[in-house]
C-alpha cells in the first residue's frame, strides 16, 4: 500500500504542475491587471487547436509556436477590448470575458466541428520510466520540465528585469507609474499577452493528454479558478503551491475514495478558505479593498 501511495503522490504532483501552468496565467492577469479572465480556458483551448493545426501542417516542432500565437491573440484582445475595462466596474470585465469565452468556443466549433480531434505526443516523448513503484511517462516529465522552466523564467523576468519592475509597480499604482512617463498601456498589453501565452502553452502541452474539442476549456478553467482562489488571488507562489496541493489531493482521493475525486479540490478550497479567507498567500491589496 505504501508503494501505491508513493506512486500516486508522485503522479499527483506531476498532474499538479500541469494545473499550475493553467492557473498561473490566470493569476498573473488578475494580480497585475485586476481582470478576472473567464476566457482563460478559451485561450487554453485555442493553444491546443493551434498546436494541432501546426503539427498537422508542419510537424511537431512547429506546434511550439502555438503559445506565441495565442499570446499574440491575447495582445490583440487586450488592445481591442480589455483595456477599455481598466478602472471600470469589475462586473463589466466578468461579462466581457465570459462572452469572449463563449465566442471563442463557438468559433472553434464553427471551424473544427464539435467532434474531438486526434493529437498524439511526438514519438521521441512516448514511453515511460519506472523507479520502483513510481511510473512516470516521458511526456509528463517533459511537461514538468517545461512548466518549471516557464515558471522560473517568468519569476526571474518579473524580479530582475527593469520591465518586470515596471509591471509590478504598475499593478500596485498605475497612476504613479504613468506620471513617471512610462507607457503603461503597452505594459498591460504585454502582461495580458503573457497570461494568454501561458494558457496557450498549457493547452499545447495538454493536447496529447486530454480530448481536443471545443469544450476542453471547461476542464481547465475550473481547476484554474480553484487553484488561484486557494493560493490567494494574484499570488504567483500561491498558484504554484495550490496547484500542487490540488494535484496531490485529487490523486489521493482517487486512490482511497474515487467517486469523490471530482469534489476533492472544492472541499480543499472550502477548508482553506474557512481558515484563511484570502487564500494561502493572499495579500491585502489597497486597489482591491
Amino acid at each position, binding site marked *: 500500500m505504501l508503494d501505491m501511495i508513493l506512486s*500516486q503522490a508522485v503522479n499527483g504532483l506531476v498532474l499538479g504542475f500541469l494545473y499550475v501552468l493553467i492557473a498561473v496565467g490566470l493569476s498573473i492577469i488578475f494580480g497585475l491587471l485586476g481582470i478576472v479572465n473567464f476566457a482563460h480556458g478559451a485561450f487554453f483551448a485555442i493553444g491546443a487547436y493551434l498546436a494541432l493545426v501546426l503539427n498537422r501542417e508542419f510537424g511537431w516542432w512547429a506546434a511550439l509556436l502555438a503559445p506565441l500565437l495565442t499570446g499574440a491573440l491575447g495582445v490583440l484582445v487586450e488592445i481591442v477590448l480589455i483595456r477599455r475595462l481598466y478602472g471600470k466596474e469589475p*462586473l463589466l470585465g466578468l461579462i466581457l470575458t465570459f462572452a469572449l469565452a463563449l465566442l471563442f468556443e463557438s468559433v472553434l466549433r464553427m471551424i473544427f466541428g464539435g*467532434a474531438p480531434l486526434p493529437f498524439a505526443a511526438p514519438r521521441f516523448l512516448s514511453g515511460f520510466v519506472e523507479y520502483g513503484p513510481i511510473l512516470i511517462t516521458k511526456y509528463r516529465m517533459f511537461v514538468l520540465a517545461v512548466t518549471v522552466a516557464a515558471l522560473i523564467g517568468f519569476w526571474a523576468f518579473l524580479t530582475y528585469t527593469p520591465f518586470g519592475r515596471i509591471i509590478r509597480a504598475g499593478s500596485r499604482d498605475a497612476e504613479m507609474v504613468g506620471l513617471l512617463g512610462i507607457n503603461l498601456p503597452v505594459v498591460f498589453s504585454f502582461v495580458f499577452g503573457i497570461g494568454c501565452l501561458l494558457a496557450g502553452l498549457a493547452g499545447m502541452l495538454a493536447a496529447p493528454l486530454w480530448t481536443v474539442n471545443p469544450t476542453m476549456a471547461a476542464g481547465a478553467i475550473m481547476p484554474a479558478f480553484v487553484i488561484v482562489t486557494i493560493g490567494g488571488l494574484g499570488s504567483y507562489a500561491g498558484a504554484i503551491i495550490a496547484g500542487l496541493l490540488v494535484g496531490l489531493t485529487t*490523486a489521493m482521493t482517487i486512490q482511497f475514495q474515487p467517486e469523490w475525486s*471530482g469534489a476533492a479540490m472544492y472541499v480543499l478550497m472550502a477548508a482553506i478558505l474557512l481558515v484563511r479567507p484570502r487564500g494561502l498567500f493572499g495579500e491585502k491589496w489597497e486597489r482591491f479593498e
Partner: protein
Amino acid sequence: MLWEDDVKDDQTKGPVIGRRGLIMGASSLGATGLVSGKLGMPYIGNAAAAEPIKIGMIWAKTGTIVDQSEYLAQGSLLALEQRNNMLLGRPAEIVWLDEPNPQGAQQNAERLVGEHKVVGIVGGALSSFALAISAVAKKAKIPYIAANAATGDLTGKSCNKYTFRLQPPVDVHARVLAPYCADIGKKWYLLTAAYAFGQDIKRAFSEYAAANGCTLVGADEVPVGTPDYSSFILKIRAAKPDVVIGGIAASDLTTFLKQWNELGMRGRIPFAEISVGNTDLWGVGPEAADGLYTLTWYYKNPNNPPEEQAMAADYEKKYKRPAADKTWMGWMGMKNLLDAIERANSTEPAKIVEALEAWSVKRGDIDFGYRAFDHQMVSRLLVASIKPKITDKWDYFDVKAELPATPSGVARAFGNQAESICKMDSL
C-alpha cells in the same frame, strides 16, 4: 441568491447587482431571446393549414456529450430534409434546444411543449438527460423518442406510454459483450461513470461476473468530465486484471484512452466497453485507439439495409465525412417519429403513440420495431475491435459479429414481458 437588502452594506466596496437589476437584466435577455428566436426562424404563411408542424429536438450544444450530439443532430435534421421538410402535406420544421444538464434538458423539454407547441420530441444524449425529458413527455403527454440513452430505467421502472427508446439498454449490450470479456480472462476491473449509464454497466457486469465465475479485482466510479485518468490507471495497473471493462462516455472515453496509451497500458491489458460512439474513437487517434466494443451501427457493415446505405451516402455527400453510429441513431429516431405522424395522419399525441407502437420493419430475420409492453426497440448489436493497423482515418473497427445470432437469442437478450419491470401506463 444575492438579495438587494443583503448587499447594501457592501456598496462602498464596489459595484453590486441588485435584485431589480438582476430581474430587469434577465427579462431583457429573455425578451431578446424570444425576439431573436422568432426572427431566426421566419415562416411566412397566409393560412392556418400552412402553419409548419414543429418537431422538438433536444441534443446537447454544450458539455461533455456535445461531440456525439453534433452527429445525432445532423442525422435528425437529415431525416426531415429527406422528406423535403414536409409532413402531412404541410411544411415541417425542427426546433433544436440544448441540454446542458438534466435540469436544463427538462426545462427545454417544457419550453418545446409549452412555448413552441411541438408535436413530438427526439433527443436526450445522456441517460440522465433522457430520463428528465421522459418525465416531461409523460406529464405533457407528448411522444418522445430517446435515441441515444442506454440506461435500463427508461424502458424499465421509469417507462411510460409516451416514451420510446431506440438504443438497446445496457443489459442487452452487457449480455452480448460479457462472454467475450470472460473469454479473455476471469479477473475484471470496472471503471464506470458516476451516473445512470455507468452505474447500470457496473451492475450488469457485476451480476454477470458473479453468475459466471469471474472476479472483480477493482471497481471505480469516475466523475463526469474527469480531465486526468492517470491515478485511476495506476490503480488498475497495480490490480493486474485480465480485462478492464469501461463505462465512460464520449469525450471522457477519448481522454481515458489517450492516457491509457500514454501510460503504456495499450496492448498490455485488454479494454472493453459497450455502446461507444465512432466519434469517441476518432478523437483518440490511430496511435492510441484500442479495445473491444459493442456498436449499434457501423457505416461499413455490409448488412445495412438499402435505406440506411442511402442515408449514409446522403450524409457523406452533405458533410464530406462518413455517417457515424450517432448519425444513424439521430436519423432513425427522427425517422420513426416522422413515419408515425405520417402513418397516424395526425399530429394528435395519442395517435402518434399508437403508430409508433405499430411501427416495424423486417431486418434480416427479426422484426425491427418498438415493443408495445415497454417501448424498447428490438435490434441486433455489432461486436467490434479496433483494427491492428488503421489506414483510413474514419475506419477504425473490425466488425467481429452481429449478435445475438438467432431471433430466439435476440428475444432472450432483450428479455420478455414477464421479466420486465416496466409498468406501462395508459394514454
